[in-house]
């Protein structure tokens, strides 16, 4: 029999239903993998008891004939989702030890569907990063090693780096992620798994630690397109507690999966063919277009003229929203409190001690990248600069959304590379914030326009590292994205995996 940890979400669900194994066996197998892979540092907290309790319930439900959509499936939860009674840190020092007395809407839906939790996954601090090097709890390592012989530890991408590493290393069959400007898609591409960010508003943001509220969106990460559809189908849905949540029925994405692309048009945006584009990436992109042609689609050349302005606009809008959202961390109601040096706060003039406590708490509690973004956000929102930066960026966001609307009058989905390169070594780019930001050059435009987009593993680089293709769809058309993803998956036949060294 296949190792249980080799099974996909659908494979576990169906095998358990058929009585091939028990849910307890599945939970124990994955928990053992998690415990045996601490070298990857993918988890901030392991919760084998939670997974086991859900598994026992799943086995009982099977006996009683009351199985649920994710019965017997243990998953990983990015540590940005508040989990009741279980530490939730956003990989930050300022929230270290924070134990929410409530459950995020998305994770609640997963538990209601019968899933169990293997643990809280490491990530970039407050989801700010593209390499998982900004976590207070240390870097996550990719399970992959380059074939160039260097043996350097590679970045799993970010910010959902723990989710990516854990799924790729078979520590969990699927994980939740969140995507603000590529944080599901880029790590999925770096480790050779699939990941989908749905239309903005599909998944409730209630109980997800906020980074940039107009961009943040939860999504699923798994080994194949079907599993992404299964997970997303459970995670999505209207929630009265999130005013931006879409009040639309959730389609049966898994049931409607169809890789037949006949009659579909696939747009190839010419502006994404950057000067000096990596040769492996360009070749994979061309190959992807051929795969979709083979699936019956017609390829059309499209233009997204404001593409080059998406990333700089994002680096105004996202930090602006972050500086506002992160103002809540002040050492008063939860999280870290740092009383500044000198003590004797009660002896200071009234009010000064409080101000000093805020500043000291935030200095001690936030990492360098988080501080950098709060500073940029505070600056662009400050008096005299608001119109020049923030209003201008929001106008450009309108133009970017308009570019997509125009393009979608000529095509059904858009095909691009997910990231401009394969995974890089940890430490290789962390000294230069701008170089790091450029990782998300292909991912950010769809985020700014609120569109569904997914990454599917498509090929290996010359150094034997995974490369991903991105499908961007029309608003609300997750089905079109998943279907094109499935057509790519079937033709790419990507079955490479990291050799176990951890």
């Amino acid at each position: 029999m296949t190792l249980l940890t080799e099974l996909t979400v659908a494979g576990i669900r169906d095998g358990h239903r058929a009585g091939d194994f028990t849910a307890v066996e599945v939970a124990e197998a994955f928990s053992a993998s998690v415990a045996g892979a601490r070298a990857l540092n993918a988890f901030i907290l392991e919760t084998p008891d939670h997974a086991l309790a859900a598994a026992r319930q799943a086995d009982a439900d099977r006996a009683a004939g009351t199985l649920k959509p994710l019965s017997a499936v243990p998953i990983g939860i990015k540590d940005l989702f508040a989990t009741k009674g279980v530490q939730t840190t956003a990989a930050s020092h300022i929230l270290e030890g924070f134990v929410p007395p409530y459950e995020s809407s998305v994770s609640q839906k997963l538990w209601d569907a019968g899933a169990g939790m293997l643990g809280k996954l490491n990530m970039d601090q407050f989801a700010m990063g593209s390499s998982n090097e900004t976590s207070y709890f240390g870097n996550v390592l990719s399970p992959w090693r380059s074939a160039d012989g260097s043996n350097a530890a590679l970045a799993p991408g970010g910010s959902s780096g723990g989710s990516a590493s854990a799924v790729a290393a078979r520590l969990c069959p699927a994980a939740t992620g969140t995507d603000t400007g590529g944080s599901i898609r880029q790590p999925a591409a770096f480790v050779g798994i699939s990941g989908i960010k749905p239309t903005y508003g599909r998944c409730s943001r209630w109980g997800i630690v906020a980074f940039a509220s107009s961009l943040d969106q939860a999504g699923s990460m798994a080994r194949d397109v079907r599993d992404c559809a299964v997970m997303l189908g459970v995670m999505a849905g209207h929630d009265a507690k999130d005013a931006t949540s879409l009040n639309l029925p959730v389609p049966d994405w898994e049931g409607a999966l169809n890789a037949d692309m006949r009659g579909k048009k696939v747009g190839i945006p010419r502006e994404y063919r950057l000067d000096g584009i990596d040769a492996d990436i360009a070749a994979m992109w061309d190959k992807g277009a051929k795969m979709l042609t083979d699936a019956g689609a017609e390829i059309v050349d499209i233009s997204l003229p404001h593409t080059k302005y998406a990333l700089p606009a994002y680096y105004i809008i996202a930090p602006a929203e972050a500086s506002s959202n992160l103002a809540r961390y002040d050492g008063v109601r939860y999280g870290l409190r740092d009383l500044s040096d000198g003590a004797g706060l009660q002896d200071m003039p009234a009010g000064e001690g409080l101000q000093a406590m805020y500043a000291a708490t935030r200095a001690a509690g936030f990492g360098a990248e988080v501080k950098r973004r709060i500073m940029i956000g505070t600056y662009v929102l400050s008096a005299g600069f608001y119109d020049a930066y923030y209003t201008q960026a929001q106008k450009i966001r309108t133009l970017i959304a308009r570019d997509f609307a125009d393009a979608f009058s000529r095509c059904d989905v858009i095909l691009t590379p997910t990231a401009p390169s394969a995974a890089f070594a940890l430490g290789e780019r962390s000294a230069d914030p701008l170089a790091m930001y450029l990782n998300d050059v292909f991912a950010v435009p769809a985020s700014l326009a609120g569109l569904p987009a997914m990454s599917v593993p498509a090929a290996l680089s010359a150094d034997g590292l995974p490369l991903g293709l991105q499908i961007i769809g029309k608003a609300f058309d997750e089905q079109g994205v998943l279907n094109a993803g499935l057509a790519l998956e079937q033709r790419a036949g990507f079955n490479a995996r990291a050799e176990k060294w951890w």
Partner: protein
Amino acid sequence: MSVDNATVSKIAKLARIAMDEGEVAALVPELNNILAWVDQLAEVDVTGVEPMTAVIPNKMVLRADVVDADPLTGGNRRDDILSNAPAPQHGFFGVPKVIE
């Protein structure tokens, strides 16, 4: 546009993040690099373009004006609310002195 040490100190103060002179000095070139890069946005003609307010058009809804309509986000949860407070005192958040 670019920033100097004094501006960065002022932003840090606005952002309520304590920073010493060394940290401020280190941030100046980093922020200037980023600002120089985002300055390219100024070249885009945005005449007649409205700033984005909602990425997916969505109608704002109001809930019924009922006390504790949703028990999870309603009132009477003092102990839950204080459960993560760093210095709860007598059922309140403890903070350094605010008024004389």
